[in-house]
Structure formats: C-alpha cells, structure tokens
C-alpha cells in the first residue's frame, strides 16, 4: 500500500512538466467567486427540484394506496385531487376570496404588529423611564401563549375582523419587540461616538446610526415572527370566521373533506413561503453592505 502511494507520487512528478504547458494554454482561469455564483444558481435549481420530487412522491404513495388498498384513499388525497379541489373552488369563485381574506388579515396584522413593536421597542430601548415602566409588564405577559388570549380578544373586539387582526398583530408584536430592542441596544458605542464627533445631534444619531445599525436585526425579527403571525392567522380563522384558509380547514373537518384540508394547508404553506421570500429579497437589497465582503469560510 505504502509503496503504491510512493509510486504514484513519483509518477505525478514525472508527468507534470509535460502536461503543464498544454494545460495552461487550454484552461481559462475562472476566479472562485464566479464559480461560486454558478453553483448558487445550480443550488436554486435543485431546491426547486426537491419540491417537485415531494409532490411526485406524495402522488406516487397515494397511487400505490389506491392500487394496494392499504387504507381508505380519502385519508390521503393525491396532489391531483387537491388540484382538482382547487379548481372547483376557483370555479365557484371562492378560492380567490379565501386566499385574499387570509392574505388581507395576515398582512394587516403583521404590519400593525411590526409598527406597534417599533414604537414600543424604540420607547423602551431609548428611554430608561419607559424601560422601567413597560419591560416588567411585557416580560410577564409576553411569554403567555398568544392563543390563550383568543377567547378574550373575541369578547373584547367582537366576532368580526377586529378580533382576528388584533390577535395576529399581537402574535407578531411580542417576538418583534425583543428583536427591535436587541437591535437598538447592540449598536456599537464607537459608532455613536464617532457620529457625535462629526457633529451629529441625538436625533441624527438615532436616525442615521442607531436605526441603520438595528435594521438587519429588525428584518431578522420580521422573518422569525412571520411563523407566529401565520399560526395566529390560522387559529383566528378557525374560530368564528366564515372565510379564509383556516376556515376551509375547520369547515372541511365538519364534512370530512380531506382534500379541502390539504388544499388549505398547502396554500398556507405557499403564502408563507412567498411572503418569506419577499422579505428575504428586500433584505438582500437593503443590506448589500453586509454581504459585500462576505464569502465562504473555506473555498471549495
């Protein structure tokens, strides 16, 4: 074994000078960075392919189930059945309504939650008085699961849209607050010092230094909170709603329409993914300054 290794080493050395000349002429030198960009594109393709496979496997299993008669096919509708169900909804005009209502509740609740968290977060992070007054309350109430509040919200805000949007906003507000306060407090004091020595007022330091510095963390918080926003959306629609994707699930449960449940669940997943991708896109656009110099830990 050892001898073999030695031999190959010698061979390489021997051949190398002959080949090198040709190699240099033929092979173009492509910097690793471009190769990395190409690979990132290929990665995206594979990721899309993975989703495709997922549906293929699902279809295949339900097909085998129908053929083999393992269990009642109604329990696991195939993707094709789900698409057919979607088509039915589309034909009677309710698909757009349900998706639209869910999206409307989600986006409004999310924006209200983020805006509220921004106001309260800035108050707490910038003023010691507000910190003392509000933080203990938020620390006590914050960890209570949002869904425990749903019945109260229904009583306070009524059975209409207000209670649902309030619940979604609150579910977004609590985690966002932590990210916003953290983002503001993590501002490098050296940057604040240098802004002061360049003549910035406290207000300018806030708008030009602290906000800029906290922004990436705030965006990270928005992406993390989004999962809770969506859970709140579904739960809110399951109780006392007559439209929306959560409503489809509850309604389908009553009538044992499994395909409808799968359709609604898939649409929720899709809506979440799209909105998450949108946030990621905005993030990339806004924080080029962060990515500019970054690269792999080790070139591959």
């Amino acid at each position, binding site marked *: 074994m050892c001898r073999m290794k030695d031999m190959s080493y010698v061979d390489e050395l021997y051949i190398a000078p002959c080949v090198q000349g040709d190699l240099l002429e033929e092979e173009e030198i492509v910097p690793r960075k471009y190769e990395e960009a190409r690979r990132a594109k290929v990665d995206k393709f594979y990721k899309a392919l993975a989703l495709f496979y997922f549906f293929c496997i699902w279809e295949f299993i339900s097909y085998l189930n129908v053929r083999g008669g393992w269990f009642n096919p109604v329990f696991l509708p195939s993707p094709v059945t789900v698409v057919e169900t979607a088509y039915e909804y589309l034909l009677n005009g309710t698909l757009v309504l349900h998706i639209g209502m869910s999206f409307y509740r989600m986006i409004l609740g999310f924006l209200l939650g983020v805006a509220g968290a921004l106001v309260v977060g800035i108050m707490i992070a910038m003023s010691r008085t507000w910190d003392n007054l509000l933080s203990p309350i938020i620390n006590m109430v914050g960890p209570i699961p949002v869904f425990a509040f749903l019945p109260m919200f229904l009583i306070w805000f009524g059975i209409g849209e207000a209670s649902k949007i309030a619940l979604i906003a609150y579910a977004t507000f609590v985690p966002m607050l932590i990210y916003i306060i953290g983002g503001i407090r993590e501002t*490098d004091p*050296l*940057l604040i*010092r*240098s*802004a*002061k*020595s*360049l*003549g*910035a007022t406290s207000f*300018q330091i806030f708008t*030009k*230094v602290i906000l*800029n*510095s906290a*922004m990436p963390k705030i965006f990270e918080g928005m992406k993390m909170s989004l999962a809770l926003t969506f859970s709140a959306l579904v739960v809110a629609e399951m109780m006392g709603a007559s439209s929306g994707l959560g409503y489809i699930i509850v309604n389908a449960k009553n009538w044992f329409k499994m395909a409808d449940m799968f359709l609604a669940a898939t649409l929720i997943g899709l809506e979440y993914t799209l909105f998450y991708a949108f946030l990621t896109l905005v993030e990339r656009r806004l*924080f*080029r*300054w*962060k990515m*500019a*110099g*970054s690269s792999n830990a080790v070139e591959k």
Partner: protein
Amino acid sequence: MGTVIEYLHKAFDIVDGEPKFVLEDVNLKVQDGEFICILGKSGCGKSTLLNLLAGYLKPDKGRIVLNGEEIDGPSADRGVVFQQHALFPWYTVRENIEFGLRLQKRQDTKEMATKLIEMIGLQDYEHAYPVELSGGMAQRVGIARALAPDPAVLLMDEPLGALDALTREAMRQELIRIWQLSGKTIFFITHSVPEAVYLADRVVILKEGRVEADVAIDLPRPRNMRDKAFQDYVDSFARMIAETETEERAVCAE
C-alpha cells in the same frame, strides 16, 4: 489660540476613600498646527486624556480649553480617529466621508469629499463598503472622514495600532503628508516610542497619570529612523518609560 489643558484630574474609582486618579494634575499648552504625541504604557491614562479631549468623558477637576472655549461634550471641531476604524458599515467610502459635511448642510459636500478621497488615494474605492477595504484603506477613510468637517484639532487614538508593520510604516509617512497638507493640530496616542519620535513636534510622556516629560523633537522632516539623533531620542524616552517598571519591580520585591 491653541489648546490649553489646566490642572486636569480624572478618576474612575474610589479606593480606600480616596479617588484613584487615572490622570492627576495634567497641564499642557499646545499651539495651533502642532503634532503632539502622547506616549506611555498601557494604563498610563493616555486614552483617558484623549477621551477627555474628545468630550466623551468629563474632567473631575480642571478644564480643557480649545480656542478660548471650554470643552463640554463631543463636537465637530474635534475630529476623532479610532484604533478600530469605526466607519459606518452601511455607508460607502464616499458616504462615510460625506457624513460630517452633510450634517453641516454644506453646498460643496461633493467637491470636498472628492478632494479628500483623492488625498487618501482611494478614487477606485469610493463606492466600496467598509467590509471590502483592507485595514490600511479603512484607516485612511477614517482619517479623511474626521478631517471632512474641518475640525480645529484631530485626535487619534492609536490609529495605526491595528495595522501590520509594513502598512504601518507607509501610513506614518501618509499621515505626515496629510498633516502638512491640512495644517491641523494633531493629538496622537501611541505606545510605540519610534513612532512618536518619527511623527511628533512634541512628545508628551505620561506615567501613572502624570506628565513625566514634555520634549520637543528637534529633527528635520522627513525623519530617518536610522539617524543617530533619532536613536538618541528613542533611547532616552524608552529609559524614561522603563524607569517606572524597575521602580515597580523594586516595590514588588519588597
């Protein structure tokens, strides 16, 4: 007018009921346009002195007067360059340099910034973000940014400390060139004796919070580190700083 430091005291702690002074009875008079190096070991109070000059800290006793006005908090008339460049990472090189100018709402912001970028020789990098710069480049941007609002004095807290030896050498020459071009008063903190002798008009040696020596460097520029006269300065300063150490050791031995 210049800068006058009078009877300056600063303490952070109280030990045995007595304030433990980091700076004790510091007095200095600096002319406009002078290059002052403040030299000392770590813990001698040199950074504290700079932070007091910048206005980040307030004196416990005594005062600092700049052009007839007592210093009370940071302001644009004292530019600061930090050891870690402290550039705003979300701004490009140009935006960083324009920061101070924009705050003053100056009409000639663009031209001023262009001039400064040319002065530090980073024309090709004006739209680069700080993460894309090498240590030496980032520090040059830091200097240009501090110079932009046209401060009366420039305060530098070991600005070359984080650079490698070769870049450091080049930056020293660059710094002298920038100083001669701008004619600013510079307070430069360092713990490197040759660096102080190379750069300064006057070297102020701090020892345990007191001014140990205040020596004018009488050498023509550009200075040569191999000159006999240069070496004499270095040796005498090194001895002054080292004396404390032998004393400390003697105390420990007892």
